[in-house]
């Protein structure tokens, strides 16, 4: 914004101006902070994960089938988000928007499952207030879920802007950044899948 907007057209749209490059770098740094944030939640979970206080344990509440579906939904959405960015780089606005919408639909599916999962837990008598284990579980999953929710809302804003303004360096940069965010949430999920669900289900 400060540098006069010198445009380097040899680069993909989202990298063309200095300000856009700075935004993208800034977002990567922000992702570094997000990694630390989730690491802390994982650390907390790792410390508290066997403190059931007489309440339900992992095996009492985890349902592997649902978790697998959630995982596949999110993995697929990460893939479709990749395709969306791929289409953006080919300057195919329509393709971009279609793949973004598919991504969000998958994300919404994931969220739907997660909310159901929470309701199911509550039915089993497993709430955030039951035990330290459940507090840390709900907050870890909930933080991830809240990020997905935020991502959906944010991506919707970006889609509206794409529809209104078409593909410009600015909208391209915004799309690229939401793409990074979405992939990142998938990365976090991989670790939740492994170190929460699978770990809890090891015989």
């Amino acid at each position, binding site marked *: 914004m400060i540098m006069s907007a010198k445009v380097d057209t040899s680069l993909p749209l989202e990298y063309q101006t200095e300000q856009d490059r700075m935004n993208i770098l800034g977002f990567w*740094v922000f992702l570094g902070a997000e990694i630390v944030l989730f690491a802390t939640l994982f650390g907390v979970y790792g410390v508290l994960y066997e403190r059931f206080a007489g309440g339900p344990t992992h095996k009492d509440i985890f349902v592997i089938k649902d978790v697998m579906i959630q995982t596949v939904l999110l993995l697929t959405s990460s893939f479709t988000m990749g395709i969306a960015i791929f289409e953006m*780089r*080919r300057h195919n606005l329509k393709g971009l928007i279609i793949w973004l919408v598919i991504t969000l639909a998958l994300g919404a599916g994931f969220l739907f499952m997660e909310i159901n999962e929470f309701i199911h837990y509550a039915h089993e008598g497993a709430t955030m207030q039951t035990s330290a284990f459940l507090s840390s579980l709900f907050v870890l999953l909930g933080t991830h879920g809240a990020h997905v929710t935020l991502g959906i809302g944010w991506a919707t804003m970006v889609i509206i802007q794409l529809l209104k303004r078409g593909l410009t360096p600015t909208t391209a940069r915004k799309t690229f950044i939401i793409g*990074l965010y979405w992939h990142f949430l998938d990365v976090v999920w991989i670790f939740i899948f*492994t170190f929460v669900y699978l770990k809890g*289900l090891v015989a």
Partner: protein
Amino acid sequence: MEHQQSKSFPISHVIGFVVSLVLTFAAAGITLKTNLSFKVIMWIIGSLAVIQAGMQLFMFMHLREGEDGKTNLVNMIYAVFMVIVIVVGSIWVLTSGHAAH
């Protein structure tokens, strides 16, 4: 930026997607269907998770792309260092000494 603009089929994405599905199901299978010890299973599935995360970073998020690719890499390495400090450090400190009930 090197690739893609010209290509019409996102081959690397498809490969990445397939591999990530394979890794996911492999981890689930090892956890649920084998009788290995807890430690061994955790090491295996932990490694699979790290591989899969790395793949996302490089293949989907284009970590090293652009003029700040190197910065991004350093950023991620530092973040991983922090993860180890926070997770391993906390668990070590809080389960040693008297806390090792």
